[in-house]
């Protein structure tokens, strides 16, 4: 069997790794601070992969593993779309497609005090930020950004929510703009909220715009740029 423990990290960047692969050997890199993102674990001097996916590197020092699944593993500072399941005295229980339900403290809103706790009915869709996400504990969410302002977080009104894989939601949020969104945006006007947990919400003035946008995004996962543009044109022709 080939011994894949090569010491140069460049050999693994942008290539597929599986759990157990040692992707970085710290003994050869001294006096550097490295930031490890999702899917990587430190074992003394070796950084090994915990998820299967592609190893990515961002200058100067960020490494992480990118993979696309239907399940979501909560990560701090992710923006997600959650559904209210229950409300308790101190927290709302929110479903974010993770292994456990997440807690949203009732005070985690801009200007939130005990007197003006919002009332969400069961099934309300919220745009939230993940504050704490530790293994084995329920994640904690918030409806404010780091400085305490509301900043677009909170309940979403009307529209239609559908589920995708986590890879597709990352592509939709990436820059440059995803080709399917660009092609749709040229002809239709709609509002969209993407959660990194694999949920996307679309709202527009007329129902058929929403349906076309939702179906175009759902179909675009495995298509290349050119194919996505062709698919969108095909869908738009059918409604006009």
């Amino acid at each position, binding site marked *: 069997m080939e011994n894949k423990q090569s010491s140069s990290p460049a050999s693994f960047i942008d290539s597929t790794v599986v759990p157990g692969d040692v992707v970085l050997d710290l003994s050869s890199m001294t006096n550097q601070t490295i930031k490890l993102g999702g899917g990587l674990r430190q074992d003394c001097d070796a950084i090994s992969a915990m998820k299967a996916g592609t190893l990515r590197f961002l200058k100067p020092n960020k490494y992480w593993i990118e993979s696309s699944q239907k399940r979501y593993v909560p990560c701090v500072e992710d923006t997600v779309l959650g559904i209210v399941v229950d409300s308790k005295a101190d927290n709302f229980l929110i479903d974010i497609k993770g292994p456990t339900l997440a807690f949203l403290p009732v005070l985690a809103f801009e200007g939130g005090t005990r007197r003006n706790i919002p009332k969400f009915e069961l099934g309300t869709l919220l745009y939230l930020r993940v504050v704490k996400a530790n293994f084995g504990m329920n994640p904690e969410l918030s409806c404010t950004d780091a400085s305490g302002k509301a900043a677009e977080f909170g309940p979403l009104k009307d529209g239609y*929510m559908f589920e995708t894989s986590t890879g597709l939601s990352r592509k939709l949020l990436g820059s440059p703009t995803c080709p399917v969104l660009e092609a749709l945006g040229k002809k239709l006007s709609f509002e969209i909220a993407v959660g990194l947990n694999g949920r996307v919400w679309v709202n527009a003035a007329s*129902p058929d715009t929403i349906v076309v946008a939702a179906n175009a995004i759902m179909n675009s996962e495995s298509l290349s740029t050119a194919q996505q543009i062709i698919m969108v044109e095909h869908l738009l022709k*059918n409604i006009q």
Partner: protein
Amino acid sequence: MEGRLANAWRLTVNDKNFIKTALLSEIRIDGRKPFEYRKISIKFGREDGSSEVQLGQTRVISIVTAQLVQPYRDRPKEGMLSIFTEFSPMADPSFEPGRPGELAVELGRIIDRGLRESRAVDTESLCILAGKFVWAVRIDIHILDNGGNLVDAANIAALASLLTFRRPECSLGGEDGQEVIVHPPEIREPLPLMVHHLPIAITFGFFNNESILLIDPTHNEEAVMNGRMTTTVNANGDICAIQKGGGEGVPQRVIMQCLQLATSKAASITKQIKDAVEAFNTERALRKIKRHPTSTGVDVREKQNQ
């Protein structure tokens, strides 16, 4: 309890309202028209009597087997037909393993009624020795993926597997002609079941608003709709069964409209099933032709035993 809550599938308030609003403009969330079926694909396994049907995202497998048993006392000349359903937990987070739930039993009953009451399968031809030996045909339906409208998909799968099932040929023998000899398939060609017609189940969804009516609901639409009705009709226009399980009340003219729609849909689905079965039979025949060079070895051995 919290673990179970985390796994359940939920519909948001936004989705519920959107599905109903869009239906008022005759738009469904997957782009279909209200009376349009999803794409049906029928595939068969290598063995006779096994079929897999995909209706959009819904996937169902059906297996037909037969056994020689003693008939019921009050029906000594008729064979038996029984349907078993299994809702696999991998199909939907709300399906639990173990005893069939309400939905599973209802699905089994609808399909059973469609086949039995309309006498689609000829049970008298399943009798070998009156009062002693008859064939009991057993249909096992496994739900693999719940994308909505399990009844229609399961019905198509059951029909497709019944049409491709072959039972061994048997003859009477022994000293007093009271023994049944079952011939293995290599000796005598197994026989198909006698199916007179194909009862197709068509499911309708009703909403609070009387003007909204749709066919073949998806999973989301099923969670939002207020009533459902399954009509089992065949291509000749005979109504084999109707099942309306609770929910919103509907006026008589809506029911008549549904029956008319169902008859037209049944014709096209029947044609699809028959085409798929014919393609499978052709392929099966071709496979048997290729088997001939090897079967001479089997023949020689059997001649020695006889």
